[in-house]
């Protein structure tokens, strides 16, 4: 078990290093950092001096090591566009994106898992067919269209909910949260649903497919053959076995949730990391792009490590040794 966790940890470090390398290559090779940092009036000598000071003439590996070291210490460099430290810019944006992503994920799980189970247990029901058709349409509508539709219906036509911004936020130790005011929740609702719908349909279909597979397994049939109550077979035996593959995929999807928040944030003008990233692309603000990349990969890796731990908690085959 310890080895399993350790192996995953090492793989995660590898992924992070690769992403850091990507970010570093971006910074180093896409455009010239010096010409970005200085104006046209800076003399060539000054540019060279700056180049030396910043260590841009050092060997490549050395530069990468320093870049990674800086990242580890939280020194993410400066934005070309605003000249602010990137760390600060990202830090102020993280709460908005995380709250949006987590609420969307919760919506998708709370709705997706039960409907998945229901449609798996009643594969031929009319409700099931209707749900399946709806989710098929759900995965086919682009996120931004769902956002527009929600804005149009609840914001424009009905006027119930705000269509942009975070509403009322509260500062809690540097974390700007919209979870503690009614205004905040009202503002969060539409973007979170927009972001959650796609994940919801994926989760539901996945749970359904896995559950149907499990229901056909020998141990479920054996359970039926010895008269274990159906409710127990469905919700204890089958559901637990269904969750083993499902949590893996959900872990993989969380990266997707964070990334897709780019679209949602753009539609709802939600001041998160995604919006920042879009702006940085428009202005070729390489340091911000690179750091965003690293931050996203970090969340992805972190969530997948948590998933691995959950795995160990659910599956005794990873916890206790084999045949004794």
């Amino acid at each position, binding site marked *: 078990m310890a080895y399993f966790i350790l192996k995953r940890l090492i793989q995660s470090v590898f992924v992070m290093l690769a992403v850091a390398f990507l970010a570093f290559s971006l910074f180093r090779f896409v455009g010239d950092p010096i010409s970005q940092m200085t104006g046209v009036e800076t003399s060539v000598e000054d540019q060279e001096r700056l180049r030396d000071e910043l260590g841009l003439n050092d060997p490549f590996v050395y530069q990468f090591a320093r870049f990674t070291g800086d990242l580890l210490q939280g020194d993410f460099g400066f934005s070309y566009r605003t000249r602010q430290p990137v760390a600060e810019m990202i830090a102020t944006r993280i709460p908005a994106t995380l709250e949006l992503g987590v609420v969307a994920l919760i919506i998708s799980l709370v709705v997706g898992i039960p409907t998945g189970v229901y449609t798996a247990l009643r594969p031929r029901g009319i409700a099931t067919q209707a749900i399946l058709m709806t989710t098929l349409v759900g995965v086919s509508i682009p996120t931004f269209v769902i956002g527009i539709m929600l804005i149009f219906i609840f914001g424009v036509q009905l006027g119930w909910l705000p269509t942009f911004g975070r509403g009322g936020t509260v500062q809690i130790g540097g974390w700007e949260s919209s979870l503690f005011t009614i205004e905040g929740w009202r503002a969060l609702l539409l973007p979170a649903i927009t972001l959650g719908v796609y994940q919801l349909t994926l989760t539901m279909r996945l749970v359904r497919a896995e559950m149907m597979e499990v229901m056909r397994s020998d141990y479920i049939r*054996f359970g039926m053959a*010895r008269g274990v109550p159906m409710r*127990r077979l469905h919700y204890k035996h089958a559901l637990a076995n269904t969750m083993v593959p499902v949590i893996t995929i959900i872990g993989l999807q969380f990266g997707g949730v964070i990334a897709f928040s780019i679209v949602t944030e753009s539609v709802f003008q939600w001041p998160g990391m995604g919006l920042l990233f879009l702006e940085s692309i428009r202005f070729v603000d390489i340091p911000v792009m690179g750091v965003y990349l690293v931050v996203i990969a970090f969340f992805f890796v972190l969530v997948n490590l948590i998933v691995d731990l959950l795995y160990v908690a659910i599956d005794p085959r990873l916890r*206790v040794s084999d045949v004794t």
Partner: protein
Amino acid sequence: MLTITDLAVKFPSRFGDFTAIEDVDMTIAPGEIHGLVGESGAGKSTVGAAVIGLLQTPGYIAGGTLTLGDTDLRDLSDGQAHAIRGDRISMIFQDPQTSLNPLMTIEDQLVETIQAHSDVSHAAALKRAVDLLEDIGIENAAARIKSYPHQFSGGMRQRVVIALAICTDPELIIADEPTTALDVAVQSQVLDLIRRLARDRKIAFMLITHDIGVIAQVADRVTVMRHGKVMETGETAQVLGAPRHPYTRALMDAVPPLDRRIDRFRVPQEADTGPITQDNAAEAWLLEGIEQDPIGLSLSNLCVRFPGTRTSLWRKPDPYVALHDISFDIRPASIMGLVGESGSGKSTLAKAITGLVTPSSGTMTLGDDTLPGGKSRSRHHPSRQLIQMVFQDPYSSLNSRQTIGAILAEPLWFYGFTPDPSDRRRLAASMLELVGMAPDAIDKYPHQFSGGQRQRIAVARTLLARPRFLICDEPTSALDVSIQAEILNLLKDLQAKFGLTILFISHNLAVVRQMADDTAVLRNGRIEEIGSTEALYANPQADYTRTLLSLTPVMPISWQAPTG
């Protein structure tokens, strides 16, 4: 107690209803072990599933009666049927690996089953469960019950499955191939347990199996099925000893005996393709291509090690020794039998000879030439043509996307025997005849043939490589016993005709006895015993061989097919 009359089960499909079984009559008394035997497609599992009410959807009972004691099983609501399951009828599945929920402890699974049928406290249920496990031979049950299924070995796991089936004291247990996935030693223990439970607890068993040896060993009465219908039913000794129905007779003829060798199995007229007598182009082609005398293979001190699975970052895992110090000679034009239980290294040996696995030490010599092992054997090495292999599973040994013609032409093209495509086609067609198939099979696809026919095609493919040395890795273990007899006959004919040297690998001692001139017994990657087949079977030297022979189910001599 269980009475079945005129039972019919149908499966609706979009091509009309498919009748799985019909006119099935059967009775089982308390404490009786009733064998239900038949080849694949006989519908025997369907009978069991119908009795316990777990037919695969969309199957349904189309007619007949099913009564257990006074209860009409067809007259029950879903809820009542579910309440009877476990309480009065229970079931044992084939594969103990998949029959238990991997995420729950044995305790949880036993206790939930007991509590589902009787209103007892957790402590009382647990005590009953522990007592039961002790009773069926699990030592230290009070501690072991806290384990998860994967912590038990295969045989122990099947005991746990049986404990789950009997923990509610059912009257009837449907056992669907309960020992098929087990090795002979474990099989014999499980069969003993079943017999004891029937005797002591008066539990009736419906023992569904394809293995007539198992029936002969434990069943009180037997029902023989074929194509969804009952052929014959009665006392085991009567049905198997003096069969009335020709099908039962044919079935008995096809069972290879353990205690003597028969030269050819007697098979029904229509299936007996026999040695082809008329001129056959493929036969002529094969004979003309024999430039060398029969070839022998000798192995000396062959070892194969696989890297172990890593469990720690710092310690290098111990290598897994698959084969240890294997030495033997296969005489030219002889058949060497290789027997062993699962995990003994039989298939690894085949892979080492064919170059799929790299030996860690030792030498292999084919004829006069050293065989380079594994990766160091070039793709153009002559042994790649001289050594060919017949595989176990005819459903996976033929590429399902190619026509039979393309499959058969491949060796002819690949080894450069026949440059002209139409010659290849002609030769392939006549090779099909040689192995007893109609030549028009050439334009069909593998899925259009039965397992036995596919195995014939697989044999044809190996012959088209003009081999001198054939490895047969469990060539009949995926086949029904009557088809097995046909394939064994075919292999014997071809071996005699073309002077092939054969390494015949099987877990089935009786089959090896029919085929092999010499036999080697393999266990945990080591050779336990080797010698001429007759001597080894008549007078085994190693304890292990003796145990294996004594545990293999046999039929009384008087029931067996006459020699010849």
